[in-house]
């Protein structure tokens, strides 16, 4: 795509990448098409559904609304970076235990939003949880079991919200 490509350095799931990116390339496309991290889903391309939620420098962002070059120098966590190899993260385990997964398309984004909620407050109220995931649309579950899973994970993690 020509000479206007930009050089960026970005850490994704603890791995440093040095990449040439097209200035128009979105972060979601970088993750999915170029790095093969297809766990990050795209649902609307307009920042309206939250399916493409990732954690960038400690905060959740819609990766469809960020250009890849804007991620230069940042640290990114995607669903593939949750848990430790074969070991699931307690949030993921709680999602399975509570039946919070139906079609699963919102799930990666939900799990990352859940992590951001618990990182901020290891013992959130139902209202805080509902506010925290209000940018993540789910069409299958009615949210109740997702809320329950986040409460469950908080309990299991016993306040240690930042571990992976």
């Amino acid at each position, binding site marked *: 795509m020509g000479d206007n490509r930009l050089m960026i350095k970005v850490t994704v799931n603890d791995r440093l990448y040095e990449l040439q990116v097209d200035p128009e390339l979105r972060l979601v496309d970088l993750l999915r098409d170029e790095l093969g991290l297809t766990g990050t889903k795209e649902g*609307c*391309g307009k920042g309206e559904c939250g399916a493409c939620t990732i954690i960038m420098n400690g905060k959740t962002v819609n990766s469809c609304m960020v250009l890849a070059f804007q991620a230069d120098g940042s640290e990114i966590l*995607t669903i*593939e970076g949750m848990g430790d190899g074969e070991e699931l993260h307690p949030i993921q385990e709680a999602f*399975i235990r509570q039946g919070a997964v139906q*079609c*699963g*398309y919102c799930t990666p984004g939900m799990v990352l939003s859940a992590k951001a909620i618990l990182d901020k407050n290891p013992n959130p109220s139902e209202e805080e949880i509902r506010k925290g995931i209000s940018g993540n649309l789910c069409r299958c579950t009615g949210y109740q079991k997702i809320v329950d899973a986040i409460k469950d994970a908080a309990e299991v993690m016993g306040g240690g919200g930042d571990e992976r």
Partner: protein
Amino acid sequence: MKGNIVGHSVPKVDAKAKVTGKALYATDLYMEDMLYMQVLRAPYAHAVIRKIDLAQALAVPGIVRIITKEDLPGLKNHGLIFKDQPALVGIGEKVRFTGDTLAIVIGESNIQVRKAIKKIKVEYDKLEVITDPLRAMEEDAVTIHTAGNIVCTHKLDKGDIVRGFMEADLIVYNEFKTQHVEHITLQPDAGLATLEEDDTICIWAATQWLHDTRVDVAQAMGLPVEKIRIIQPAIGGAFGKREDIIAQLHLAIAVREVKRPVKTIYSREESIIATSKRHPMIFRFRTGVKKDGTLTAWEATVIGDTGAYASSGPAVVHKGLYHCTGPYDCPNVRGVAYTVYTNNTYAGAMRGFGATQTAFAYESQMDIIAEKLGINPIELRLKNAYQVGSTTPNGQKLYASVGVKETIIKAVEAFERLGGVIR
């Protein structure tokens, strides 16, 4: 019967793959040498196409092929019940809603394909656009399909409706309307197709019934059924939308022409404009009831707007009629259901399939009746609720598992346990 495993909430078998992001949806499939496909949709909801000029679009770098109906004169219509929907609309033919397809554009990147689509020039003659099913049913309305705008009519006649109304102490008439609803499956429509060495077309795309999708794709293309293979990836929600062929037929056409893997992902906007909706329906209910609340007669007219194509419409609309008295025993029922074409986005299956729309109408009607009679709405329901031995509007006798009264009693108990007060 509960068993050692049945009746217990074991971990869902697909949850681990989904919670780790490893489950592969059609959007997540990639292949070497893969091309991207998008289609040009109709510029107007009802029009005759006069000219499709591809020259500038073909000049966009990276464009491999643009396919129009003129390339595929043998292409047949598809559809779940009636074969009334074209995968491509050609010169001299009609578009019937803004989601109809005029050209399939295939290129090396999605960005190039989208650019090319904007450069296709279409000339067309506008026709009267019909968005109201009642207008569609009028004598002088332009016909959207040659056989007329009423796709089909279904009738219901149980007992003796005249006697039923004569027995009634109160007759209540109301009209209710429901709206177009969109499924919003969180995963946008998408698919990937390959052409195998033996010319079999393999399609990975979410579908609710892969064997039926396979047959419909094959018959539309005039291919033996064995030459189409449909493989189910993970499905990011369906709710009825993925009963219709969405991208599969376009992918099959494309892959056969370019002989390289072809992928497509719809934008959210395209998905909402071009794929099925919940049928908006009109219900005219006249209900006869005795002073004590016993239903004696139920007369129903149901009109469903199936949009530009029938899809599941002929089954959806009459399901609304067949369920018109809800879970209540009424000895005398008469009704008619009309499934009607308009130039709106076609309507098809959506969770509840007509029974959702009609429930809003009959449960509103029951509450209106309860108030007019001065009977508690819960009592009115319990009085008329089905039990073993009741017959439905179709005359089907219920032999077992008729738990409706228990659902009412249990729901009331649970609501009160939570501190709710029924006023």
